[in-house]
């Protein structure tokens, strides 16, 4: 047992206490505070880990889990996102859910725990367990709303999707297990490097796992229904789904890719390449046609993860022009955190707006709620990758990494996709600009204003002065 | 070459079981009669012993009515499943050191699996009958059996913890010093409850009690197909009794008398206990039955398991 397990233990305790409290005495306030306490303690313990010890001492692994400075940072990011969403949750639930508000926190914590586990998993068993913990909690989160009829439909769709994904992943795991007789990542990494090029069966196993992960990341051939789920689910669930779940899944994808000799596996590489290109283009093209801001975000997230897939090509690629072997990792971390921070911001802004689903509901927002509109615009620009925002720095890192590793071919697609992306990001802004009628709007509370300013400042300041952030990431990775 | 005894033993066991099941109907009626201060069947043969034969002839010659509205195949298969599952269960029971059909390492899991499978029989009977009483009865029975199965398994685990094995033979062997009823009184009680509910005997016979919903899942059954449900139920009672004997009362172990006699005696005692239960205890309400199971028996079963483990660990070292 080491200090590394503290966050997970904290979350576990919080979950049990919360469950008990809900059973004995239903109180929204109480549930809110217990969740907050759990998340904060987990986050602080994780941060103190980062602070206290030397970075290289963070590495620790046992049979099922392995911790590194990278995983610690990712966990902090994850917990940060959870905390940020949690902060907005109380108001939102008060406004939108008539009864049974408390279980939402429970599911949130469970999903968080699952994601946390995925980030540090080092064994197919632990990975699978955490994944399912997360996915099943998400089904609950998505189907949560009873007032909203579409929510159940979205829930069942997500359930089937995630079940299919897990089935495929499991099949892949089983095939690999059949081939190698081990479920440990470490074992795979060690034994695949020095054996002959992987066999047919092994490749099939990898492809099965990939398909499963692609479902989780909703990348292109597996992207159906994603937008439906985004639209039907309650907003905080959508926010969690698109941040927490994707973060964890991508980390696993990266981890798997990092191990073994996938890089030499031409079939897998081709597959990923095709998926990356298709995701970039199709994600953004489909987003063009959407009329709901949530669907736009859903499809744009497809293409963002398409961009991220490019980075997978850089690992183990020898032609590094910058003599900096960890740079792709830095870029990955930077892009991932930039995107997730921005997206969390976007969702929390949407959570503050009453009519959030359709694009028309945002008409004239600039004049009725200037701060909301301004922050939403900045977030959109960040997603589009306009300079001085966090999103741009992410994209800059990504492009730099891929150019320095001479992986040029995806870049034209990236440019095309980005330009297509501009269309709909700007469309959101334009809708907010149109109609000068000043609608009556309820005054914002101080907390709301504060969090909006926080989003603006975070996105802008990290985008304008990324030095500190970049150095942190470098020290973590290097 | 297969030994003759390997074929003979099962055959004898099967015949004995069927006869025992048949005569336990007689036993029940006689005993109930005695406890209710009346005679019970006493006309056919000495003490009415041949009443069973008469009943059998009657049931065989009844109209073999398959309702036209029923799902025919399932309707016929359902009672077969019950019979087969219950009879299969006896395959793993060690009647005596040398009379046993098969020795499984995971015999207890086999028992649990069979009892789960027999739920199918009831569900299929209810569904295929296409009658409201039957369906209601089937739903109730299924819910009841499923519920009680959870803590039946958990209650059994107390024994497993002490014996360290799923094998019934080893469990019996482990009772050479003392019977597990002594170390597992709570587990025994739980298992008894669960057993009664599993074999849906009174007082837990609500799904098929005449005063509740006619005859439950076999409302539409007649002739031998009804007879199979009927015999299946008695077989179930004998099976649970045999299990209790094996798990908590030392199985075939006993002084002086040959093991098989000890086993039969103990089992017969529990069969009679079951009959006594029917005579003595009133039925609870269905919702009471269910919530009693989930909110009392399940926690108790978990607790029992935990306590047994603590007990075993403190004694084990």
């Amino acid at each position, binding site marked *: 047992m080491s200090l590394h397990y503290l966050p997970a233990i904290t979350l576990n305790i919080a979950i049990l206490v919360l469950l008990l409290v809900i059973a004995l005495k239903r109180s929204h306030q109480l549930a809110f505070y217990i969740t907050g306490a759990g998340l904060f303690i987990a986050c602080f313990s994780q941060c103190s880990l980062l602070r206290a010890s030397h970075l290289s001492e963070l590495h620790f692994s046992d049979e099922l889990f392995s911790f590194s400075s990278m995983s610690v940072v990712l966990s902090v990011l994850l917990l940060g996102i959870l905390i940020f969403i949690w902060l907005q949750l109380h108001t939102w639930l008060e406004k939108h859910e008539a009864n049974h508000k408390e279980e939402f926190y429970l599911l949130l914590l469970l999903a968080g725990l699952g994601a946390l586990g995925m980030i540090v998993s080092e064994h197919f068993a632990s990975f699978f367990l955490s994944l399912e913990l997360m996915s099943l909690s998400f089904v609950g989160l998505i189907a949560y709303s009873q007032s909203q009829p579409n929510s159940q439909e979205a829930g069942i769709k997500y*359930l*089937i999707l995630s079940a299919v994904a897990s089935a495929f992943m499991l099949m892949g*795991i089983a095939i690999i297990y059949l081939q190698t007789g081990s479920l440990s990542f470490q074992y795979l990494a060690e034994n695949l490097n020095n054996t002959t090029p992987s066999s047919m069966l092994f490749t099939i196993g990898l492809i099965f796992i990939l398909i499963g992960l692609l479902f989780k990341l909703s990348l292109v051939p597996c992207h159906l229904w994603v937008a439906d789920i985004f639209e039907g689910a309650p907003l905080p669930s959508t926010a969690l789904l698109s941040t927490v779940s994707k973060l964890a899944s991508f980390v696993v994808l990266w981890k798997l890719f990092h191990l073994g000799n996938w890089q030499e596996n031409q079939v897998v590489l081709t597959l990923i390449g095709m998926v990356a290109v298709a995701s970039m283009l199709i994600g953004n093209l489909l987003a063009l046609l959407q009329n709901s801001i949530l669907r736009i975000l859903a499809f744009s997230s497809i293409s963002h993860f398409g961009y991220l897939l490019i980075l997978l090509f850089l690992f183990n690629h020898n032609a590094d022009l910058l003599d900096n072997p960890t740079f792709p990792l830095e870029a990955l971390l930077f892009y991932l955190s930039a995107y997730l921070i921005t997206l969390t911001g976007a969702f929390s802004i949407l959570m503050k707006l009453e009519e959030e689903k359709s694009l028309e509901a945002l008409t004239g927002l600039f004049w009725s709620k200037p701060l909301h509109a301004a922050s939403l615009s900045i977030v959109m620009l960040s997603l589009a990758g306009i300079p001085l925002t966090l999103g741009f720095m992410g994209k800059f890192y990504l492009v730099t990494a891929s150019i320095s590793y001479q992986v040029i071919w995806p870049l034209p697609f990236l440019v095309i996709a980005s330009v297509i992306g501009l269309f709909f990001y700007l469309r959101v802004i334009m809708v907010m600009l149109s109609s000068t009628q000043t609608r009556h709007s309820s005054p914002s509370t101080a907390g709301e204003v504060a969090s909006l300013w926080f989003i603006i400042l975070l996105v802008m300041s990290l985008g304008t002065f990324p030095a500190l952030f970049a150095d942190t990431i470098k020290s973590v990775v290097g | 070459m297969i030994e003759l005894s390997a074929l003979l033993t099962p055959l004898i066991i099967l015949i004995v079981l069927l006869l025992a099941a048949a005569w336990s109907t007689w036993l029940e009626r006689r005993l109930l009669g005695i406890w209710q201060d009346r005679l019970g069947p006493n006309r056919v043969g000495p003490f009415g012993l041949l009443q069973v034969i008469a009943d059998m002839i009657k049931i065989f010659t009844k109209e073999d009515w398959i309702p036209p509205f029923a799902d025919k195949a399932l309707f016929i298969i359902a009672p077969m499943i019950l019979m087969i599952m219950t009879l299969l269960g006896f395959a793993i029971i060690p009647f005596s050191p040398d009379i046993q059909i098969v020795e499984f390492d995971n015999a207890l899991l086999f028992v649990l699996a069979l009892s789960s499978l027999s739920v199918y029989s009831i569900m299929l009977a209810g569904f295929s009958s296409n009658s409201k009483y039957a369906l209601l009865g089937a739903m109730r029975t299924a819910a009841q059996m499923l519920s009680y199965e959870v803590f039946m398994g958990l209650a059994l685990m107390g024994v497993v913890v002490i014996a360290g094995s799923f094998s019934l033979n080893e469990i019996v062997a482990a009772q050479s010093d003392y019977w597990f009823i002594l170390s597992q009184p709570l587990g025994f009680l739980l298992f008894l409850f669960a057993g009664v509910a599993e074999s849906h005997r009174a007082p837990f016979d609500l799904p098929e009690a005449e005063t509740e919903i006619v005859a439950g899942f076999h409302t539409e059954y007649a002739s031998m197909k009804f007879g199979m449900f009927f015999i299946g139920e008695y077989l179930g009672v004998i099976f649970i009794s045999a299990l209790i004997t094996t798990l908590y009362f030392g199985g075939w172990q006993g002084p002086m008398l040959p093991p098989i006699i000890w086993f039969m005696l103990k089992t017969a005692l529990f069969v009679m206990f079951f009959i006594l239960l029917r005579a003595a205890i009133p039925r609870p309400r269905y919702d009471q039955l269910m919530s009693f199971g989930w909110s009392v028996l399940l926690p108790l079963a978990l607790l029992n398991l935990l306590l047994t483990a603590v007990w075993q660990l403190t004694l084990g070292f």
Partner: protein
Amino acid sequence: MIETTWVIILSFLLFAIGTFGLLSRRNLLFVLLSLEIMLNGIILLFVAASNLHGNNDGQIMYLLVLTLAASEVAVGLALVVQIYKQQQSLDVDTLTKLRG
């Protein structure tokens, strides 16, 4: 005993049947059933592989997958009941409120 190859083939077959059912069936309950069949195929493969390699990892995975199957069905059935209450149908094609 039965050769492992046959078990493996059977498990692949089960998986394929499940996948096919998933794609072709329109009733939600059958979709869930197909998923279970897929999972059963996987379970079989794990156990077979575990037997082949002589370690217990596969059997542990078997338990975990079993748990997954159970919880999936639990959640799925709850949703199916809800949806049936709403729509009086379990046809996947009627789940079209969220389209476009």
